């Protein structure tokens, strides 16, 4: 890889991060909604932790925080797709491809934005929750590990939303895919432990890779750092990232083939 390509990666990553920082209103929902869920569930389900079979947590907050981080990462990553769609609608995309820019940097820039946002958000959530007495058994290492899982899944889902943006060129289409993320999240063990589920819901949650990813992150918070658990979590997020990158590369190619 040449130095120029790396410079393109850096410049477009910087731009997409700047995009996020300069329109904070766009990321407020991805910060506030997960926090709202966290507050509601921690209070409404406070006594659920006393149920036999519930993981040994000191508060529902401790159980829930990993889900909040993943939820925030998923919501935030939509920004990558809608910013890409805005670039296409507004014509900035054309401006880019009329220059000798390395084509892959168009994707890399966007995904870097999602990754950084996912990582930073995780620490904001940890920060807020610790004001309410959150204890992370895995310590700083555990928090960084969870944040990395969050950042990776943010980039992965960001890549999928970028693929939708490249296929459709429409902000509405990207935002329309948003409820789908909700469905995946609700059909997982994000809000309740699998050990206490039963019937079809438990089967679905067990099949849902998000459950295993969230549980791997949760393990770091409840029990302390566990490398093999972390590897499970990061692998699931990584697999989604790889899938997203493949999908968005094909979508970029299709768009460029139609144009270039």
């Amino acid at each position, binding site marked *: 890889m040449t130095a*120029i390509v790396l*410079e*393109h990666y850096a*410049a*477009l990553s910087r*731009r997409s991060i*700047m*995009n996020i920082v*300069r*329109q904070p209103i766009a990321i407020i929902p991805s910060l506030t909604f997960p926090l709202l869920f966290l507050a509601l569930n921690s209070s409404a389900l406070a006594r659920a932790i006393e149920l036999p079979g519930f993981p040994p947590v000191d508060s529902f907050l401790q159980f829930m925080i990993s889900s909040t981080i993943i939820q925030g990462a998923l919501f935030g990553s939509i920004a990558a797709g809608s910013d890409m769609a805005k*670039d296409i609608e*507004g*014509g*900035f995309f*054309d*401006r*880019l*491809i*009329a*220059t*000798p*820019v390395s084509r892959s940097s168009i994707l890399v820039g966007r995904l870097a934005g999602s990754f950084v946002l996912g990582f930073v958000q995780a620490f904001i959530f940890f920060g807020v929750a610790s004001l309410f007495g959150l204890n992370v058994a895995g310590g700083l290492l555990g928090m960084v590990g969870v944040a990395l899982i969050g950042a990776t899944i943010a980039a992965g889902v960001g890549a999928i939303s970028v693929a939708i943006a490249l296929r459709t060129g429409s902000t509405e289409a990207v935002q329309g895919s948003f409820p789908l993320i909700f469905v995946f999240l609700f059909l997982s063990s994000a809000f309740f432990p699998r050990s206490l589920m039963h019937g079809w819901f438990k089967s679905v949650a067990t099949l849902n890779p998000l459950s295993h990813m969230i549980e791997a992150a949760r393990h770091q918070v409840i029990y302390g750092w566990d490398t093999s658990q972390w590897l499970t979590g990061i692998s699931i997020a990584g697999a989604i990232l790889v899938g997203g990158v493949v999908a968005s590369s094909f979508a970029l190619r299709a768009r460029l*083939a139609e*144009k*270039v």
Partner: protein
Amino acid sequence: MTEKGAYPVVAENLQRRFKDVEAVRGIDLQISRGEIFGFLGPNGAGKSTTVRMLTTLLLPSGGRASVAGYDVVKEADAVRRSIGVALQDAAIDPLMTGRELIRLQAVLHGIPRSQADGKGVELLDRVGLTAAGDRRVGTYSGGMRRRLDLALALIHTPEVLFLDEPTTGLDPNSRQAIWEEVRNLNSEGTTVFLTTQYMEEADRLAGRIAIIDNGSIVAEGTPAQLKAAIGEPTLQISLPEGTDEVAAEALLMKYGDPVDTPPGSVAVRLKGGASQVATVIRGLDEANIQVESLELHNPTLDDVFHKATGRRLEGAEDATDAGPSIQVS
């Protein structure tokens, strides 16, 4: 001379179809080094489609084209390195500042930071945006955006500059500023490919013009050639009140065919061209016909367009606003 040397933009039977619509129906272009070439036509005529093919943003459906000596399909990357492009909808990220965008554009063209900063300062100054350079583009006026767009297209000192309707929707002052800058650039040797739907713009800026309508080039030449092909200029004479209009018209008809005019004036298409004006004035004087004012209208590009297509161009009024022309070309 080779194609690269003599003609920075060449198109041969260039075509583009969108499903059933033939947007560009096989056009030929040969643009010489250092010229401002005006591509004039109404909305939807195929101007932007042609520019998008020449700037590698769109694949041709047929024919071929080369820009700066490189094939737009097979050597697209080399084309991109050689051209500056300012597209119709000044698509500029509103969240970034002018200076940041120039820096980004420089990186995309692989210009080292040490050179890019100096060039950025120079370009912002050139387009009069030094003071606004650190403001977000979202706060810029339409004219400022177009000027920034122009600066962005110039960061790598391109061989050929493509300007797609650079002044559409701008106020007269902003339009003048862009025109002046385009002339300056051209005088420094940049070949300019300019699309416009304004005749006045083509007339004032372009050395050579092609008129495109419905995907085909319907007329091509220097503005003077195109207008000359229409034929004679019109001489219109306003008469003081009480003058015998019939006598005046009878006299004028010796010099050409009459043209409809409002009462109080008479007009003819001068058969012998502008050189006949002196003869007509002498004739009027000899016949003792008083004249209040005399105007010589050269054919406009709108007349050229009208003759080629049977329709009038949008914004034709803009060009006639320039007033009667007594300049003889």
